[in-house]
Structures are given as C-alpha cells and as structure tokens.
C-alpha cells in the first residue's frame, strides 16, 4: 500500500502515457555513434549551465569552461558594464587558446582588465573587441573590428550562467527552461554563497551517472549505511511523494518526517553532535517564504525537491541550502562530474561545522555511487542484455532517456 497517493492512472509513469511502461535499452549509454549524435543534437543546441554569477564577483572576473563533447573551450567574463558574456576561447590570429594557465587542457579562473594572447600578444577587451594587434601594419587589409572574439550565446537565469553553442539558439533561455523550472524564479540562490565544490572524472556515461541521482530506489541497497545499523531493516523501500515532467526537464519531491525529527537511533552520533548530516543543517536560517514552485505537488510535510534540468544539470533544494550536479561527457564511457553544496555564509563556527559535516557526508555517499557506476558502465558495454525494466520510482530515468532520444532524432 503506497504511503503517497499515485495519480488517477494508477502510476506516475502511466500519468505520462508517452513514456510507456516497457523495458528500456541503455544502448544510448554505450554507443560511440550515439555519442556523436548527442554532441550535435544536444550539447551544441541546448542551454548549458557553466557556472553561477557568484563565480564572477566583479568586473573583470572570468572563468573558462571546457565543454569536451562540443569541442569547445568557453571563457565567461563579467565586463566593465557588469554584463556577463561568453566567448570561444580562441585567439583570432593563429587559433591559439587565449586564456589558460600552465596546462592548456585545464580550466582556469581569475581577474583581468583585458585578455592577452600568450603567443603573439594580441589583446581583447572584456567585451571581446580586439584592441591591439602586434605590428598591425604588417597585416594585409586587417580591420580589428572583424577580429573580435567569437561570441557564444550567454544568458543568466536566477544567477545561473548558461551558454548555448548553437549559431542561433532555437529558444531563449527562459523558453528553454519552461514553466516548471522558471517557477523557481523567486528562490534566493544568491543568498547561498558559501560553496563546497567537488569534481571527479568518472568511468561511466554521463547519463548513467545522472540516472543514479534521479531515483531513490537504489538508496537502501547501495547506501545502507545512510541508516545506522541499529535501525537498518532489510527490505526497506523508498517512495517519492511527487513526480513532475515539463518538456525535457523533470523533478521529484520527497516528503515525510525529517531525519532529525526521528528518534535518535536514526542518527549517527556525529549528526547529533553537530546537528547536521546527510540532509544538511538541522537548524540554520530559514528561507521565507519558499516559492510555490519549489513544491509543485504541494507535498506536506515537504522534504527535498530534485530538479533535473535538461541536459546535464541537477539542482537539489533542501530549503535553506542547495546542491548542484553537472555531468560533462568526455567520451561514450566517461564524464567529468562537478558538484557543489551551497549554504548561506556561516556566521560562526557552529554553522561552519554544520556545513562541513554535510559536505563530508555528501562525499561519502557520492563515492559509493561513483564506485558502483563504473561497474554498471562496464556491464552495459557487454551489451548482453538490451531490455531493462524500470519501476514507477524510476520514472525520471525513463523520461531522461526518452528526452535524449527525442532531441537526437529531432
């Protein structure tokens, strides 16, 4: 007997009939040809979140982003007019990579008044204009106005900086995000500027890894240690209170008693000692009022909301802090994983320790996911089995692979 009501159709999956209920192939996660299709149809077309406005604190702040699957390196910079712009990180003279430090393949960040090419000293201002050509009169009919940095479409939504590598994006960022995501317009991400950033290079397809974070069905099996052993029971299930789909994006909400409202045997001593843990600080400043878009299912009591923004962004909101994951494909069987936890800045050591405990515990269980999914990838690559059953709690996995397929075939 479900604890949470299902839609009238009997299941969340049937509530979205276009999803079907049959088995699903993960060929899209092992195929080199499919990866090539994703490169063109998804990563060179969709809006991609590359950072937050807090990553560009002042005029002249910049960071570079390597988008391997799109063969792109992008430099994102806050101009003298406070506008955030993105450019291809390429000097227009001989094609040298413009902004990098020490290792040309690695990302960099910093602050500058202009960009200087290391190779021949061409200079560009923060708006991308070419401002200086070494020995300009040795060139033939060269007009600097023709040699500004190649722009990349860049828009900011609620502090999230997105780029689009298409020549002309088919949708504005807001159109692309759609009503379900833009219903978070009022959520004060900007207040959560204390960040704990992580990265990893994982041996799994980007979708295989994303799948692990859009269902909680695996939690009792892969992460039994999330529950202290005294109260760990075999056969425990997990049920989400609400699922919702909007275009290529999707979300789920959990509900029920907060971990810290359970009896103490449901918490580890360190959680009790720090009043923090897997689900973050128990106390902390409250964000009032939370926008309705955060809990579109009206779940009560509300737990967390997990927004999956197509193609490779996840925003997990815990109320007064949030988590972001990004999955950057680097080959059919590997991806670069980025994650961060963001809290309102600690006002004292106690809050700082609360955040530390949440960040440490996050890593513990993410390591289990990363460790196992290398194995999933290797097994999928045998291609011995092609049809895999997905249950109703895995509806978002089903929808994700369908959305990817739809974009590829569009």
């Amino acid at each position, binding site marked *: 007997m479900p604890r949470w009501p299902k839609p009238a159709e009997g299941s969340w999956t049937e509530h979205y009939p276009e999803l079907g209920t049959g088995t699903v192939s993960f060929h899209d996660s092992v195929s080199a040809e499919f990866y090539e299709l994703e490169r063109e149809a998804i990563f060179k077309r969709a809006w991609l979140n590359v950072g937050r406005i807090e990553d560009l604190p002042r005029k002249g702040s910049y960071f570079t982003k390597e988008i391997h699957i799109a063969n792109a390196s992008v430099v994102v910079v806050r101009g003298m007019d406070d506008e955030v712009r993105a450019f291809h990180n390429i000097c227009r003279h001989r094609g040298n990579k413009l902004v990098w430090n*020490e290792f*040309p*393949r690695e990302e960099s960040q910093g602050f500058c008044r202009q960009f200087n090419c*290391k190779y021949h000293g061409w200079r560009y201002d923060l708006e991308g204009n070419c401002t200086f050509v070494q020995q300009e009169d040795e060139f033939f009919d060269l007009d600097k106005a023709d040699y500004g940095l190649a722009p990349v479409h860049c828009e900011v939504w609620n502090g999230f900086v997105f780029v689009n590598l298409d020549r002309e994006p088919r949708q504005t960022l807001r159109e692309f995000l759609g009503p379900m995501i833009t219903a978070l317009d009022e959520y004060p991400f900007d207040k959560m500027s204390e960040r704990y950033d992580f990265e990893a290079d994982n041996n799994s397809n980007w979708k295989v890894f994303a799948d692990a974070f859009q269902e909680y069905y695996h939690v009792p099996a892969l992460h039994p240690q999330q529950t202290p052993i005294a109260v760990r029971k075999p056969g425990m299930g997990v049920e989400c209170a609400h699922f919702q789909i909007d275009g290529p994006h999707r979300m789920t909400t959990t509900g029920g008693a907060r971990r810290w409202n359970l009896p103490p045997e449901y918490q580890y001593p360190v959680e009790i000692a720090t009043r923090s843990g897997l689900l973050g600080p128990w106390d902390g400043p409250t964000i009032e009022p939370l926008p309705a878009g955060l809990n579109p299912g009206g779940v009560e009591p509300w737990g967390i909301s997990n927004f999956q923004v197509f193609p490779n962004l996840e925003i997990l909101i815990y109320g007064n802090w949030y988590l972001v994951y990004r999955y950057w494909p680097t080959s059919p069987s590997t991806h670069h994983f980025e994650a961060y936890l963001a809290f309102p800045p600690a006002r004292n050591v106690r809050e700082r320790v609360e955040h530390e405990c949440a960040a440490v515990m996050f890593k513990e269980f993410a390591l289990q996911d990363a460790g196992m999914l290398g194995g999933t990838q290797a097994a999928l690559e045998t291609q011995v089995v092609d049809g895999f059953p997905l249950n109703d709690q895995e509806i978002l996995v089903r929808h994700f692979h369908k959305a990817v397929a739809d974009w590829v075939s569009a």
Partner: protein
Amino acid sequence: MLPARFTELEPFAATWCLATERERYATRLAVGIQAMQEFYDAVTPRAEEAMAYLEQFPLDELPEDALNLLHLLYSMIEVSFPVEVWHQPRVPDSGSAAFDSFTEPRP
C-alpha cells in the same frame, strides 16, 4: 668530491654534481626554488675562479674532482633560469611539455 679549494661547495656536491642534463633537469624540478636559490647564491661567486681552475687541465683529461666541479657548474647554469628568470622551477605555462636530452658531449 670537489677540489680542496672549493670545499665550501661540498654541501651542494651530492645533489648537484650530475653528469647528464637529464639528471640536472630532473633535480631542478624536484628540489624546490629555495634550495636552488641557496645553491645559486653559493656557487655563482666562485664560478669564475672555478672556470680558471678547470682551465689548467685538458678538457678530456679532467681529474675526477675537477670533473665533479665542472658538473656543478653545469648545474649552476641549469638553475639560473628558475632563479634569475622564472622564480619557479618550471618554465611558466609549460605544464605538459617536455624536451628530453638524448645526446650531449662528454664531459
């Protein structure tokens, strides 16, 4: 290891009397800029005297201690770039670049 009149350079001999460029370059990347600065400061004031001393021998018949001294001077040249120019062991922005010596005159 070194000729008697250069005994005060002995503390550097074990690290820097290296016969090949490969060893000298590897040591440069391994020891840190502080150690190179100390070596540089100690050896450069004696470099002219060392060259004058070594000139009394035919180049291909250097006694062992003199040969060690010559290798020490080669190391002095090796560390001069980190110390005088880069202020760090590596050439800036050369993170993934290498350029390996495969033949050089002996000595």
